[in-house]
């Protein structure tokens, strides 16, 4: 374990990190006989950018799926805001304020960008069905408020020009950005990003890094992300969990992890003689 577990520290660039928000305790996940995650524990603090890295097949995406409720682990506990979380379905997790993006992008291809981002607000809509249908009172005020938030996010992610375009027609890089916008529209307490920069060129990666940093800075969003690109991860994140073959082999600041012999071995391979 490292000194920063438990939260309440100040980062090198002066951001205040709060209490522990999410805690994974001894998580084990199996698919039949295959062990995808083996006895892993780590925590995520409020306001933090937390990265999960590791070689292919290390179990990173599985871990993200456990947090977002797509998988329920056979063993271990998930604690969120100081409460143990019972096994949950993905939509229940989303309603608790945990939003996510997917490695292979899951968008509503037939809808416009604006409509896609609006679906991110679904968990915040409370007005009754009939009043929404006749567009009166609370429903109208709510719709206006939601639209304002969505427009703010669309501005923030610089996708104003494509707001009315059906998502199916967009190139890959922009789709990734729309997916991020939808997740952000939920105003999540915790935002999970599954390889936000996979398949992007250098310029797009720089844009995405900028967005992630300012999301965290301006909206105070806590972010947990998976990434392959080591350089990007080390620049972005406050703390890093390293996984290999379903096990945790490192946890700490980017510098701690960079100097960890086990991590270096996992990434570069080690000579067996």
């Amino acid at each position, binding site marked *: 374990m490292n000194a920063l577990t438990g939260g309440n520290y100040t980062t090198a660039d002066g951001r205040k990190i709060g209490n522990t928000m999410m805690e994974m305790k001894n998580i084990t996940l199996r698919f039949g006989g295959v062990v995808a995650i083996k006895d892993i524990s780590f925590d995520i603090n409020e306001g933090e950018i937390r990265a999960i890295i590791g070689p292919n097949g290390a179990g990173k995406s599985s871990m993200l799926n456990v947090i977002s409720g797509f998988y329920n682990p056979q063993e271990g506990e998930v604690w969120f805001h100081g409460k143990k979380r019972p096994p949950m379905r993905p939509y229940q997790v989303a309603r608790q304020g945990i939003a996510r993006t997917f490695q292979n992008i899951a*968008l509503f291809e037939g809808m416009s960008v604006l409509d896609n981002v609006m679906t991110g607000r679904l968990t915040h809509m409370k007005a009754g069905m009939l009043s929404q249908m006749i*567009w009166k009172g609370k429903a109208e005020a709510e719709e206006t408020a939601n639209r304002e938030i969505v427009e703010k996010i669309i501005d923030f992610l610089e996708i104003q020009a494509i707001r009315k375009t059906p998502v199916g027609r967009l190139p890959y890089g922009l789709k990734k950005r729309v997916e991020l916008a939808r997740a952000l529209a939920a105003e999540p307490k915790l935002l999970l990003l599954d390889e936000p920069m996979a398949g992007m060129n250098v310029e797009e990666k720089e844009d995405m890094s900028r967005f992630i940093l300012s999301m965290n800075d301006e909206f105070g969003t806590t972010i947990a992300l998976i990434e392959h690109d080591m350089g990007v991860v080390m620049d972005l994140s406050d703390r890093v969990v390293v996984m290999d073959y379903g096990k945790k082999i490192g946890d700490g600041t980017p510098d701690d992890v960079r100097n960890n012999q086990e991590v270096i071995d996992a990434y570069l391979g080690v000579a067996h003689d």
Partner: protein
Amino acid sequence: MPEQLLFAMEVTLNGLMAGVLYALVALGFVLIFKASGIFNYAQGVMALFAALTLVGIMDGQIPFAHIINAIFGTELHHFGWHVPALLAIILTAGVMVVFAWLVQKFIFSHLVNQEPIILFMATIGLAYFLEGVGDLMWGSDIKKLDVGLPQGINDWIDITTFEVFGYGFFIDNLDISATIVAIILVAALIIFSQYTKQGRALRAVADDHQAALSVGISLNFIWVLVWSIAGFVALVAGIMWGAKSGVQFSLSLIALKALPVLMLGGFTSIPGAIVGGLIIGVGEKLFEFLIGPMVGGATENWFAYVLALLFLVFRPQGLFGEKIIERV
């Protein structure tokens, strides 16, 4: 105006009215297919079941009277009261919601991620099961359904057209009310799907399940909702058909007529279901009128299917369906 043309106009109008009913049944199919990828063979039987239940409730029939009497040796048939039409319609809609919930709970929640053909087979099973249940609950005799809709020739149209053309059109009042009800229903559905939270969620689920889950939509809830809506659409279709030709078990066969409608309109398009229904309705009647006498009549039995076959050859995705292009 030549008499032949006037006849054709009258036939076209009647065809449009018949098409509205086809469109209503097809609409139920499209709703479920879009949201869950299930081709619901039982849609026609649902219309029958809804109509049977409505008549049963209105007449105060005791459900499962035959079984009860057989077991206990009683002679129960009626509660002895009559329920007003509007209240009975609301109660029947409630029954269809319960039915939707049962279908989701006991059938489709166990078949998540199964092949489409398996889901289809399940709906065939459901169709026969529901037909049997309808029979047991309400009996198999033909019933008269009268919810108070005006019936018979529309005098105003008859007189007006007689004054203008010198030939009075025969348009049934029932067809006119069916058309109005269908328009209101479709308008309500469009407003629902475009402007409400649940409608948005429904479109989201129709598009991508995983993404829908990630924004906090319960798939189960949406599926129950969509089966309920399809049940309600079936109820409306059942009322119209039932009022026209009595509630009888051949009603479930109207589902088969919806099949060519869907091939024309596309399986995923609500406007397609409507336009497809109208085209089949008009086409059928006009074809019978113009070509029928040359081939000895009875073309209405096969015209729709031949038209659908032509569409399958030249435009397999239908008029409004999504064209499937595989990227290589």
